[in-house]
Structures are given as structure tokens and as C-alpha cells.
């Protein structure tokens, strides 16, 4: 059986450093090159970072491959390369068959055009022929459930309606190879179920599917094989269930504590370096899971090497989808009233109970210097620690007596009042 997708040693590097700005002005560029001439340098100075390196795999015809990994692990870069949106720096990939992609729904929607016009526009953007769209038009509209508004400009649609219509178009693409990125994360639960059903239908008909997702459940449910990417490299490859299990174990289990015994290799630089990060309960014990009702501490140990500037510890909490729940600076007077003195410190941020929703929370830790209008990280680590928020369902949380899923990044326990009037 020939492989539908063959990827051999694909890599992609980006330049950072001097060329960091997304787009500069011509003047900047000219000054920079004149500067280089004056200093008699031949090459511009920049660092390369590899978003993806030496990635090789094959997907047989009709195979469904899932790709998992942290944010920034290179999943989306890989899909962008396979979808020819960006070119690789090295390597080679061969795709045998018509390629369709669902990188983001609603691409090419124009708000001034009606739903009907947008179906045709979006369909051709995704590579469908006019005849094909016309023949599936009724099916698409029915799937989206916006029949009544099909001749209304989409700027009058709610965002949910736009997404549903867009997904309906994309779901009716009939390519031989389908590249999918996170589209299932849109819409309400009912619509998500329909999307999953549609995906199952597609993969059951001999289509080759490459599926990137944060939703581990859908990966193990839909895919027969999975890859895990980390920092652009393949770190795990095997049956979907196993890869997902190992991934969850690593991100969810042992991630509640991290330390850097050697200062030289610890995150940071001249100003400050991290020593350790822990997730702790009120008794000061390291914990992997916390009750949604009780508070949880993020304990950050660090060393200030070169004091004299205003430094603050800072944490950022994200949910499993990578959505930022919040950012918080240490507001204690210790850091606010005087410049930081050199020395070792341990700061603990207490996240109150009944704030985060159930599920995995990931914490990014940084020691930042206060700039004029932005914070300059002096030491920091992404995905430093993580912990599970659990609700035993004994009351005292926003769940009340309801047993189903409550969506949202946060889930505060609000004060409700009701009077009869």
C-alpha cells in the first residue's frame, strides 16, 4: 500500500534577533544594512530558531494520524507546511491526492456578502469547483442550520452562526487528504457532536486525515496513530491511545514540581535566575490535583543576581486549550517599594478556590522587570508546572447539584440573590 503522505526530514527555521519585528520600515532596513557596511560585517546578525526539525513520518492511504503537543511545539507549523502556506527550510514532503484543509474555519468570509455568496466564495477558496458547490449547496445550508438567513449579509450573523456556516462548507469538501487543525473547538456542544460525527464519516470512507488537536479524547477516538511533537521534534510515535496516555501522564502527572539545581543552566540571565517552581496546598505539600474549592499556591524560588532594578515575580495560568486564564504580578510591598536586592527568594502566589474551572491548568512563571509600558522578562519558563482542578461534587462550588460539564476558563462561585417581586 502506498503512503498518501510521506514526510522526510522536514524542518523550518525562523530568524529572530535583529529581524524580530514582524514588519519593519524600509528606513530601518536601510539603516541596518548601512550599519553593517560601516562595521564591515557581511552577514546580518540574527539567531535561528527551529520551529520544526527533522520530522519524518508516513500516513498510509485511509490512515488517520493525530498530532499532539504543547502550544508552540510545532504542530501548526507542520500543518502550514503540508498545506503549502509556508515553505519548509529543509526536507521534503509528498502528498498523493487532492488536499483539503480546515486550518481555520471562515477563511475568506466577507462580511458584506450574503451567506449564499459566502458559501460560494469560501468553497472556491478551499478549492471546490463552482459546480460542486452548487450541487452540495442545499446540504451545506441544512448542515449549518442558518437556512432562514442565507440571503442576509453575514455581518448581521452572530459569531456562532458564522462559524456554523463556515464549518458546514468545509465539512463538505471531499478531498482525498484532509488536514485539520482544532476546528472542533468551535460552536456549542451539540454542533461539536455533529462535527465529530462528520469527521468519523469522512475517515470511514478511505480518506487520509491528519488531525491536530488539544482535545485528547477526540484524538484517541478518531485516530489510529498519533505523533507527539515537542520543541519541533517528534518525541513519541505510536498507536493513538498509547501516545495520548503517555502525553497526558507527562503533562498532567509529574508536572507539579520542577527545579534547577545548577545555576548556570537554570532559566534566566545576568539579572535573575529561577531555582524551582512547585504547586503546593495550604499545608505546603506538593500536589498534582486540587479541589476546586480550596486555594492552591504556586511557589517560585529564584535568585536575584544583579539587584537595583524593580523586579517582580509573575505567573500566567492557562487552561488546556492554551487560553490565558489570567496574569498576575506579585503585589506584595517587598517588591514595590524598593529595587530588588541580590539574594535568594521564595514567593508564593495563592490562587483562590472557586476561581479556575475543572481540568488541567498550566502555569508559566517569570521574573519580570518593570518597563515603561511593558514587562521585560529576566527569567522565565513556559509550562513550568501544571495541576488538575477537580470538583468532587459535594457542593460548595459553582456546579451546585448539576453533574454535567460547565464550560469556560474560569468558574467562580458567584453570590446570587433572588427576591420575589
Amino acid at each position, binding site marked *: 500500500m502506498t503512503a498518501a503522505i510521506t514526510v522526510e526530514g522536514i524542518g523550518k527555521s525562523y530568524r529572530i534577533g535583529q529581524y524580530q519585528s514582524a*514588519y519593519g520600515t524600509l528606513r530601518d532596513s536601510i539603516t541596518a544594512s548601512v550599519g553593517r557596511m560601516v562595521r564591515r560585517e557581511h552577514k546580518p546578525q540574527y539567531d535561528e530558531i527551529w520551529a520544526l526539525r527533522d520530522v519524518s513520518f508516513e500516513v498510509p492511504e485511509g490512515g488517520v494520524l493525530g498530532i499532539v503537543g504543547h502550544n508552540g511545539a510545532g504542530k501548526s507549523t507542520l500543518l502550514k507546511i503540508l*498545506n503549502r502556506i509556508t515553505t519548509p527550510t529543509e526536507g*521534503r514532503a509528498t502528498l498523493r491526492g487532492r488536499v483539503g484543509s480546515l486550518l481555520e474555519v471562515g477563511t475568506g468570509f466577507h462580511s*458584506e*456578502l450574503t451567506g449564499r455568496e459566502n458559501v460560494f*466564495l469560501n468553497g472556491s477558496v478551499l478549492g471546490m469547483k463552482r459546480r460542486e458547490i452548487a450541487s452540495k449547496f442545499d446540504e451545506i445550508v441544512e448542515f449549518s442550520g442558518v437556512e432562514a438567513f442565507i440571503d442576509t449579509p453575514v455581518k448581521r450573523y452572530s459569531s456562532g452562526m458564522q462559524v456554523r456556516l463556515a464549518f458546514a462548507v468545509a465539512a463538505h469538501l471531499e478531498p482525498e487528504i484532509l488536514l485539520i487543525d482544532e476546528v472542533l473547538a468551535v460552536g456549542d456542544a451539540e454542533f461539536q457532536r455533529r462535527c465529530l460525527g462528520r469527521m468519523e464519516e469522512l475517515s470511514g470512507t478511505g480518506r487520509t486525515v491528519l488531525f491536530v488537536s488539544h482535545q485528547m479524547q477526540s484524538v484517541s477516538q478518531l485516530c489510529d496513530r498519533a505523533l507527539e511533537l515537542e520543541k519541533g521534534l517528534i518525541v513519541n510515535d505510536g498507536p493513538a491511545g498509547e501516545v495520548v496516555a503517555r502525553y497526558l501522564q507527562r503533562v498532567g502527572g509529574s508536572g507539579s514540581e520542577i527545579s534547577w539545581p545548577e545555576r548556570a543552566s537554570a532559566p534566566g540571565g545576568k539579572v535573575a535566575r529561577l531555582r524551582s517552581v512547585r504547586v503546593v496546598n495550604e499545608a505546603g505539600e506538593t500536589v498534582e490535583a486540587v479541589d476546586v474549592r480550596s486555594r492552591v499556591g504556586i511557589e517560585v524560588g529564584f535568585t536575584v543576581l544583579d539587584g537595583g532594578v524593580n523586579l517582580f515575580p509573575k505567573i500566567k495560568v492557562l487552561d488546556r486549550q492554551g487560553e490565558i486564564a489570567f496574569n498576575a504580578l506579585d503585589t506584595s510591598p517587598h517588591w514595590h517599594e524598593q529595587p530588588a536586592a541580590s539574594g535568594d527568594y521564595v514567593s508564593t502566589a495563592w490562587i483562590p478556590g472557586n476561581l479556575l474551572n475543572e481540568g488541567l491548568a498550566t502555569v508559566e512563571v517569570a521574573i519580570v522587570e518593570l518597563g515603561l509600558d511593558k514587562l521585560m522578562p529576566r527569567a522565565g519558563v513556559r509550562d513550568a508546572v501544571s495541576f488538575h482542578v477537580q470538583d468532587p461534587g459535594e457542593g460548595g462550588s459553582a456546579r451546585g447539584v448539576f453533574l454535567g460539564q460547565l464550560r469556560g476558563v474560569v468558574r467562580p462561585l458567584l453570590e446570587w440573590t433572588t427576591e420575589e417581586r
Partner: protein
Amino acid sequence: MLASIVRVTETQAPARPRPVEAAAESLSSSFPRTTVIRPAPRWPHLELLELWHFRELLARLAWRDVSVKYKQTAFGVAWAILQPFLTMVVFTFVFGRFANFPSKGVPYPIFTYSALLPWTYFASAVAISSGSLVGNKALVTKVYFPRVLLPLAGVTVPLVDLVLAFSVLVGMMFWFEVWPNIALVLAPVFLLLAVVTALGVGLFTSSVNVRYRDAAYALPFLLQIWLYLSGVVYAMSALPQKWQWVLALNPMTAVINGFQWGVIGAPAPNLGKTAVSVAAALVIFIVGLEFFRRSEPRFADTI
């Protein structure tokens, strides 16, 4: 061709259906099924077969821009006529009355209006195609298609305005009793020269615009100067020969002279100067296209 895929999937046999094979024959005849992805070569070439495959998308993009252009405007499509018409009125007063500029022996209003038609087309074609990549950022960073389609759609959009504004010229012909001659049949050829030039400039500026937004500021200024070097406000033929040859390097002089030759019965353009303009247009087009192709692999990363 795709109907066959649908049919196969619908009649699911117990054995796993093979839509790939069913469609293989028809797909491969229209477009190579196998895509090979490699690092961008230094000098990519234009894949005409691929462009042909995407012709429907080109039409769809152009159609989108045309149908959106005058939405939520009070005058609507009338703008297509008002723009060149009002410019003509201003030019007639300033350059025709006060400055008494030469106008090829026809009334100044019809002289300048017949030049403004191709010029207005050219200026908006350059402007639209220059902004086409940045304006369609969502598409460029999310889906694959030959990026050339965006500036290409950009130069086709103002053709609609040109056709609309032409109706006013017909009215002016009756009013001033100035008639076209047989060279009218060549007018589309001269317009094609304007299309090629606009596309060349648009390809260049649109890709510069991706990296440096300066292009958006420089362009209106450039177009304003270009207008005065194109024989829109005065007849080129009144200039000294030497300068006429220099200005022939500007393809728009040939476009306007050639267009006026047929449409308002102006004297025939000089063959040598026209050849110079055609050559200049081709150079602009090829340079623009090559520059575009070289920058294309990085569009999605830098936009």
C-alpha cells in the same frame, strides 16, 4: 469529476470504498494529484498549469471585489463615472481654459476624458493590486493558492469601472461631434498594455508592501507624478521629439495615444515610440513577476 467521489462514498460497500482510485483518472488529467513540498528554490518559476486550475477562484475573488466595492455607499456604482468625470471638469478649467494646453485638435474636455479613462483604470488597478496581499491577510496565512491570483484579480476589478465610464464618453462624442475611426478595434489591445503594466507594478508593490508598509504611502505620490508624465492633461505630440522618445519609456503614453487614436480619431501614434513602450511594459511586468515569485515563499511568515 467530483460527483464521482460523492457517489462512491454514498454507496458504501462492505469492503472499504476507494474514492481515491475512482477519481484518480479524471483528477490526474486535469491536475497533477501528487504534491511535492520542498524548500523554496532561489528562482521559482510561474506554474501556468496551476494558474489555469485556479481560474474559478480568480473569477470568484474578482467578483467579490466588484460586488463589495460600492456597498454601503450612497451613490453606489455612480462613483465609477463620477471620478473620471469630475476630474475631467477640473482639468478642463485648469489646463484647458487657463493654461490652454494642446489637445490634439479636439475639444479639450473630450481629449482629457478619453485619456482619463485608461489612466483611471491604470491608477486604481495599481492601487488595488498593491494592497491585495496585505488586504487579504486572512487568506494568505490560512489557505494555499497561487498568490499571483490576488494582484491579478486586483487589475481586473477596475475594468468594470472603465466600461461604465465609457458610456459617458459615448455621450460626449455626440455632444462634441467627435467620432471614432477604424482604429477603435485596436483600443482593447492598448488597454491590454495598460493591464500588463499595472500588473507588473502591482506585483512588485504588493510584495514590497508585505514587508514594508511604506509602499502604501509612496504609491499615491508616485501615481500623481506618473499622471503628468502620461499625456493626460496635455497632448504629448506638442513636446519636442527628444522628450517624446524619453517619455515613450512610460508605457502609459502609448496606451493613451493608442486609445485616443481609435476612440476620438486622434492622429496615429508613432510606431517606434509604441514599440519602446511595449518593450518597457514587458520589462516592468517581468521584473515585477520575478520579484513577486522570489518573495512569495515568505509572504505568510512576514505579512
